[in-house]
């Protein structure tokens, strides 16, 4: 039986999203599923768009956001808490101060207001409502791409296909098999020498997300010290892309032993490269030499 593979790309969330579908009867429909979910998460979470749902949240009252925004914020604050602030979704201020203040399509500058942080967000999970006790400059950039990947995958998994690989600016989600009928073979870029690979993995049903200082200048900050991250980069493998995305950001700002402890505590695997070039990984991090 011939294996059909189709590759298509689009731009969303300040990044190029590339899709590969294997053995799919209707790849155009699958592509639209991915594009639609990125559009939806961007609509809800884009801090650069004054009209995004995130930017229209008001302070003080209980609000009923769309499920997309509610669950993005719920997961963001859960990971912020689990990482004791190493992942911080309320860094809009600091990032804007460092020049990350323009919408990637319109070029419009946005200056986030807000002196609160993620601890000032109250969530009522039973009623899916939330309340901002203070004005908060949210930045969901380190979780939104992963969340969109997860939502797209949830819908694609119900379609008739052998496998798919989604790549949102180097954050990957892989399911099923590649065109050889095998789990996906994933190269992890080496933050010490970005044109080379650190390692190679064999992955299916998992996301592989990397955070590194080389990505767009040194944009990672340690939220607790407000200084640039010390680690060169971290890569996390997890079944939920939003978690891999956010935890890779947290792991990249921590000292490697603390990063590995964080990944272990949350049941995910990964590898961290320290500034001195030392490489540490979780015990369950399996490479495919």
């Amino acid at each position, binding site marked *: 039986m011939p294996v059909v593979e189709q590759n298509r790309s689009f731009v969303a969330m300040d990044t190029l999203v590339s899709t590969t579908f294997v053995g799919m009867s209707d790849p155009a429909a699958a592509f639209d599923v991915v594009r639609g979910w990125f559009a*939806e998460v961007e609509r809800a979470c884009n801090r650069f768009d004054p009209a995004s749902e995130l930017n229209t949240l008001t302070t003080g009252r209980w609000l009923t956001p769309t499920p997309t925004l509610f669950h993005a914020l719920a997961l963001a604050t859960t990971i912020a808490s689990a990482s004791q602030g190493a992942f911080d979704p309320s860094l809009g201020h600091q990032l804007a101060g460092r020049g990350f203040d323009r919408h990637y399509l319109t070029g419009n500058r946005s200056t986030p207001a807000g002196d609160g942080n993620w601890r000032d967000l109250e969530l009522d999970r039973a009623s899916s409502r939330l309340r901002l006790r203070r004005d908060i400059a949210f930045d969901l950039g380190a979780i939104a791409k992963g969340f969109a990947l997860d939502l797209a995958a949830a819908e694609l998994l119900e379609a008739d296909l052998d496998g798919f690989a989604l790549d949102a600016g180097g954050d*990957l989600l892989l399911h099923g098999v590649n065109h050889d009928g095998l789990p996906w073979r994933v190269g992890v870029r080496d933050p010490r020498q970005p044109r*080379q690979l650190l390692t190679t993995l064999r992955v299916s049903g998992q996301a592989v997300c990397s955070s590194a200082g080389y990505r767009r200048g040194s944009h990672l900050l340690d939220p607790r010290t407000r200084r640039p991250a010390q680690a060169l980069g971290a890569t996390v493998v997890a079944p939920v892309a939003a978690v891999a995305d956010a935890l890779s950001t947290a792991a990249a700002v921590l000292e490697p032993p603390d990063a590995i402890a964080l990944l272990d505590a949350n049941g995910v695997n990964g590898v961290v490269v320290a500034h001195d070039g030392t490489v540490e990984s979780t015990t369950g991090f399996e490479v495919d030499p």
Partner: protein
Amino acid sequence: MSPKIPDNVLAVGAAGVLAVYGIGYAMTNASWRLSNEIKLARRTEHAGDYRDGRYRAVGTSPFGDVWVDVTVRRRRIEAVEIPRVTTFYPESDIAALPAEAVARQSAGIDIVSGATGSTAAFFDAVTRALDQATRPPAKDGR
């Protein structure tokens, strides 16, 4: 240390995905155009001044190239498509790699984790395509 046991982040993440996806919060092509293509047209300074046609250009980055087809209709950007993307897998410095790494390179790699710079390549390509759309029709082959 906080005595509170943190939520299981994987469980919260999976539950969030199911909650959002489960209620069928799917979006349409039309909304994607609103969120991207219209903004892209608005972003360009010469919006409305383009010659009708279809323009292909390639943008480059150290890690990959992006081709775009920009369609201009009634002097406005109607669509931006990405017919092709290449990712340069790290083989250029192969001579400098240790033997183990060389062996790794030779095996097939489907996809690479870590940023590629291809978004910059995309905007580079769009800018080049729109340069074609603002120039008078070529006569000397350039």
